[in-house]
C-alpha cells in the first residue's frame, strides 16, 4: 500500500517545486520566440495540415462513408493533441537526467520531479491546443455535450500513464544511453500503430489486436468520444487503460526511487 501511495505523495510533497519547474519550462519553451505561446497552436496545426493533405486529400481516407476532409481534420486533430503531448514528454524525459547533470551531481534535489514536470508541461501545451480545438468545433456548429465533463478525468489518467512511462524511460536512459535514440524510432512506430490519422474501422480484423493492446488507442478514443461524438468512452478499453496507467505510475516511481541513489555515479 505504501508503494502504491508513494508516487502520489511525491506530487503533494513537492507541489511547489513542481509548480515552479512547470512554470519555468512553459516560459522557457517560448521565452525567446517571437510568436510565443502561439507555437502551442501552430505546431499541431502544421502537422494537421500535413496529415490531412497526405491521408485525406492524397490517399482519400474517409472517417465515415459520407464524411469529407473537414471531418477528417477534426478527428485527426482530436487524436493528434494527446499524442503530441505524449510524444513531447517521452522524448524529453529520455534525456532529462542527462541534461540536468548539475542538479544531480552537485545539489541535493528531488530528481523524481523532473520527469513529472515535463509531463505537466506537455499537458498544459496540449490544453492550449484543446481550447483552440474546442473553439473550432463550436464554430463548426457542433456543440459539445455533457460527456465533455469526463475529459479532466481522462487527462488525469493520461497524466498517470505518461508520468509512469517518463519515470521508467528517464531511469533507463541513464543506464543505457541508447534509449534516447530508440525513443524517437519507437514513437514514430507507435504513432502509426495508433488510430490517429486513420479511423480504427479501416484496420483489418486480423490486425485489430495491435490497436487493442495499445493504451494510446483508448486515450485517443476517449478524447474523440468526449469532444466530438458526445458519448462516454467505451468502458472495457477505458477501464483497462485506467489499470495500466495506475500500474505504470506506481511501478515507474518504484523503479526510479530504487535506482535514484546510483544516478550520481552514472553521470
Amino acid at each position, binding site marked *: 500500500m505504501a508503494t502504491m501511495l508513494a508516487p502520489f505523495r511525491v506530487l503533494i510533497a513537492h507541489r*511547489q*517545486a513542481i509548480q*515552479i*519547474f512547470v512554470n*519555468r519550462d512553459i*516560459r*522557457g519553451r517560448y*521565452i*525567446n520566440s517571437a510568436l510565443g505561446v502561439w507555437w502551442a497552436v501552430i505546431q499541431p496545426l502544421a502537422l494537421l495540415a500535413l496529415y490531412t493533405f497526405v491521408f485525406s486529400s492524397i490517399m482519400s481516407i474517409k472517417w465515415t462513408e459520407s464524411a469529407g476532409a473537414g471531418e477528417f481534420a477534426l478527428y485527426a486533430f482530436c487524436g493528434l493533441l494527446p499524442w503530441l503531448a505524449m510524444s513531447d514528454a517521452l522524448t524529453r524525459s529520455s534525456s532529462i537526467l542527462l541534461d*540536468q547533470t*548539475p*542538479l*544531480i*551531481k*552537485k*545539489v*541535493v*534535489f*528531488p530528481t523524481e520531479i523532473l520527469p513529472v514536470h515535463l509531463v505537466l508541461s506537455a499537458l498544459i501545451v496540449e490544453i492550449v491546443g484543446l481550447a483552440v480545438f474546442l473553439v473550432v468545433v463550436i464554430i463548426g456548429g457542433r456543440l459539445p455535450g455533457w460527456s465533455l465533463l469526463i475529459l479532466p478525468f481522462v487527462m488525469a489518467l493520461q497524466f498517470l500513464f505518461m508520468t509512469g512511462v517518463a519515470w521508467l524511460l528517464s531511469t533507463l536512459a541513464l*543506464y*543505457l*544511453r*541508447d534509449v534516447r535514440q530508440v525513443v524517437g524510432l519507437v514513437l514514430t512506430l507507435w504513432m502509426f500503430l495508433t488510430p490517429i490519422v486513420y479511423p480504427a474501422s479501416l484496420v483489418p480484423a486480423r490486425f485489430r489486436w495491435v490497436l487493442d493492446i495499445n493504451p494510446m488507442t483508448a486515450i485517443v478514443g476517449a478524447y474523440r468520444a468526449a469532444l466530438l461524438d458526445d458519448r462516454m468512452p467505451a468502458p472495457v478499453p477505458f477501464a483497462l487503460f485506467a489499470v495500466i496507467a495506475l500500474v505504470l505510475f506506481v511501478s515507474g516511481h518504484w523503479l526510479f526511487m530504487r535506482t535514484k*541513489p*546510483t544516478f*550520481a*555515479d552514472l553521470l
Partner: protein
Amino acid sequence: MSSSAIEVDHVSKAYRLYPTPRHRALELMLFGARRYHTDFWALTDVSLRVTAGATLGLIGNNGSGKSTLLQLIAGIMTPTKGRVAVNGRISSLLELGAGFNPEFTGRENVELYGIVMGMSRDEIVERLPMIQAFAGIGEFIDRPVKSYSSGMFVRLAFSAAIHVNPDVLLVDEALAVGDVLFQHQCIRRIREMQASGTTIVFVSHDMGMMRSICSEAVLLDRGRIEAHDDPATIANIYHAKTANAEAASQTSGRPRSSGDGAAPVTFRADTNFDERVRLFRHGTGAARIRHVELLDRQGRPVSSVEFDDEVILRVHVQYYEDAAFSILGFSIRDKTGTDVVGSNTHEENVPLPPRLAGDTVVVDFRQRLPLAKGSYSVSTALAYDRNKPSYFDWVDNALVLTVLPPESGKVIHGKVSLPVDIAVHVQ
C-alpha cells in the same frame, strides 16, 4: 559532549569503471552474472564524527577523496559500504549556482533554490531582501542571470546558499572565487553561522583560511583518513608531507617523466579547464587557451609554492582560425585583484610563430615568485595586437596558487620581496 551533526561510519566508495558503455549494458542485462567493471576506490573505510556546531576542514591533494566525501555527506551519492547520517537541513556549495537557469531572473532562480532546499514560499519571500543585499546586485535581481557578470553570478549563488539557514553547510573551495571584499563578507557570514550553531564542513587549499575558520581538520590521502586533529597540527603534517615528497623526488636525481633532459612538452586540452573557467573568459574564440598548468622546476604540477621558488606556468593554446600574429601573456594577481607579476611574449621578445587553424602551441613562462604569502590567481590571455585591447581568449582565474611564507621566518613587507642591500654607516 554535544550531539553529532554528521556521522560517517566505515564508509567506502567505489566507482565502477567500464571499458565501454556496452559493457555496462551487458552487465545490466545479465543481472551481474558476469562482471565487466573494475572498481576504483575513491574512499576506503572512512569514519568520522562531527559534533553539532563544529567546523571541520578537509585537506588533501587532488584525488584524495575530499569531494567524494562531501558528496556522500550531502547525500548526492550513496556509499558502497558503510553508513552516513546527517542531522538537519544540508546546504551544499559544491558548485556555485548549480541548477541556476540562465534564462530566468535572479529572483526566480533564488526562489527555486529555496523551494528545492525545502523552504516554503513565504520563507523565501521573507529572505529575498537579505539575499539580494548580501549579493549586492541591486536591481539585477530581476534581470535574467545570463546578463550577470561572473562575479554577480557567484555572489548571488553563494548568498542564496547561505541564507537558507542550513543546519549543516558544505563548502567545496567555493570561497576561492569572488573579489576580496566579498570574501570578507562571506567569512563574516560564516562566523555568524558558526556562532548560531551551524555545522560546517569546508574543503580548501588555503591553509591560512583553514586555520582561522576551522575548529578541527582532517587530512585525507588516497581515500583514507590520515589524521584528524586541530587545524594547526593538520596543516603542519600536510606541509611536512608535501615537503617530504618533494625531497624524495629530488634525491632520486632526475625528473621521473623524462629520459634524458627535460620531458617533451606536448599540447594537452583539458575539458575540466573549459568547464571551470566558463564564467571567467571572454574573447573572439578564434583561438582558445585550453589548459593552464603550474609546474615546479622538475615539471611536476604544484598548487602551492615556497617563497621565491621558480615555477613554470605552462599555457596550452589551440587555434581555430589562421593567426599570423598573436601574443600570449599572463598576470598573477593577489586577492585584491592587483596585478603583482606579469608579462607576455611580445615584451619578452619571444614572438609566437604564425599558426594555422587547428595548430597548437604550448608556452612555458619561467618565473620566480618572491611574493608575500597568500593565494594568488593567474590570468592568461591571447591577444591580437599589443596596441589594441582585442583578444582571442582571455581567461581569469585560470588557476589559483598559494605562496607559502619563507622558511627562514623572514617577514615580507609589501607584496613583493626584491633583493636589497643594506649598508650601515655608523658615525
